[in-house]
């Protein structure tokens, strides 16, 4: 299926919110090719009739009772925040396109 173009890696980097310079993107394109080449072998044995496994154990229906547990104190919740303003996390401006 590969090979991966720089443009494709650039798109992936944007999806993953990683601002990478061009040399890094090119490096990744090459490495991704090599890795994908080798992992592509999974398709050799992935026959249509084989079910998918998302969870290693067959557990189901693990629920919590709807009972309130103490929350963190706001100062704990905010303790590690890079920027805080009146009890809330301060974040850079949001472009409408992202809304």
């Amino acid at each position, binding site marked *: 299926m590969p090979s991966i173009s720089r443009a494709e890696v650039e798109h992936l980097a944007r999806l993953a919110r990683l601002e990478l310079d061009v040399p890094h993107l090119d490096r990744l394109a090459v490495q991704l090719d090599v890795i994908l080449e080798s992992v592509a072998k999974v398709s050799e044995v992935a026959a249509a009739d084989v079910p998918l496994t998302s969870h290693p154990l067959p557990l189901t*229906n693990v629920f919590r009772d709807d009972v309130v547990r103490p929350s963190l104190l706001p100062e704990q919740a905010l303790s590690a925040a890079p920027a805080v*303003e009146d009890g809330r996390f301060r974040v850079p401006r949001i472009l409408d396109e992202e809304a």
Partner: protein
Amino acid sequence: MTDLMPFDEAMDRFDPVLGLEVHVELGTATKMFCGCPTAFGAAPNTQTCPTCLGLPGSLPVVNRVAVESAIRIGLALNSEIAEWCRFARKNYFYPDMPKDYQISQYDEPIAVGGWLDVDVPTDEGVRTFRVQIERAHMEEDTGKTSHQGGETGRIQGADYSLVDYNRAGIPLIEIVTKPIEGMGALAPAVAKAYVAELRSLVQALGVSDAHMHQGSLRCDVNLSLRPSPDAPLGTRSETKNVNSLRSVERAVRYEVQRQAALLAAGGRVVQETRHWHEDTGLTTPGRSKEQAEDYRYFPEPDLVPVAPSRQWVEELRGTLPELPSVRRQRLQAEWGISDFELQNLVNAGALGVVEATVADGASPAAARNWWLGELSRLANERGVEVAELPIFPADVARIIALVDGGRLTDKLARQVVAGVLAGEGSPDEVVAARGLRVVSDDSALLEAIDAVVAADPDVVEKIRGGKVQAAGVLVGAVMKATRGQADAAKVRTLLLERLGVDLSG
């Protein structure tokens, strides 16, 4: 300025197709995946924990009541309840989402298919539409961002934003309709009726307060136009967060007119998210979906699958209350009212309060009159739903009883209502405090009458001469003298007796 085509013209030239996505915030005590409380209006970030803040290492655990609520909603919508389904991660970055993915459901929703019947008033009477349901699934809400600087509150031109994660992780049920077709010009009314019906449904189930003004029921409106009902579906716009019944109707109308003008001018509709502006009644373009986002859904590995046993599902079916449509039919029969009268009650959101008022002893007719008349007027003045007025059905029932017993005139009764709404206490307390009672002490009345009679001999002569209608003048004078607290009918009777005029005459 976006140009719009007149609605009727648009309806002559195009056929609208609707899709509605409603997010219902469940009224559980705790969040979807953690034990934090969900109370509305708490101080910022006071209802958070490692899990709903998405702190490294934290893990989600599913709230059983939220799952039960989802299943009960599904059953009430006549949906199939999945035998086995998983949560999935919807991956996208946004600062109001602590993990930068939303735990939702993707191709395995808990409820599949179903329908909801909605009554839409038309010129030819009420028409019932069957809205087909695509799915209902469970997910978590996001935090709240407020935009600072720039045009206040608007995202455009803001300098930065502040995030409160109290709402992050509150359980949501997203209910998605199949494309709704064949509505023609009724589209706005159908949209409104559907959301209203869904709201009373979840309220009846007791799974959510569904207060649209608090955002606990939010609607996204997808609308597209096509030249004719047999043409393929057109490109749709997705108008987000339309958060009142009136706005749902307006938003559909607006999008119909906007898209019609666009298409008529040879333009094409862009598939995009649009923002609804309550204040201006306009929608404005947001994120374009031309290059559809890639959410990279995959099964949530931190949560195990949900596999509701059929027995559990049947137990939950047993907990379903009388559903709104059934209840409406019952009340219509009990009260002997027309489709149209019923519809008025429903539209005014007064069905529940009227039912309660009747339960407190009032006649259905009187209860309807008060709630649809005086009380609706006051609610409008205050810009709230009539059911949200600070007066209990029991108070209204008591006021009606006082009027029926002749202790209050309608005029006085309105003053009592005003007093109750002003927080002056129960109707009887208001009556006492404001001294509002019908003057029924005859001697006091007769004194007033004698004074009037003595003061106006000519009119008295006319009346004695048979011109009974002239009595009105004197009755008015007596009412004036008693500052309106007398019962006019009674004054008239006593006056005519006094003047020895034969009542039958």
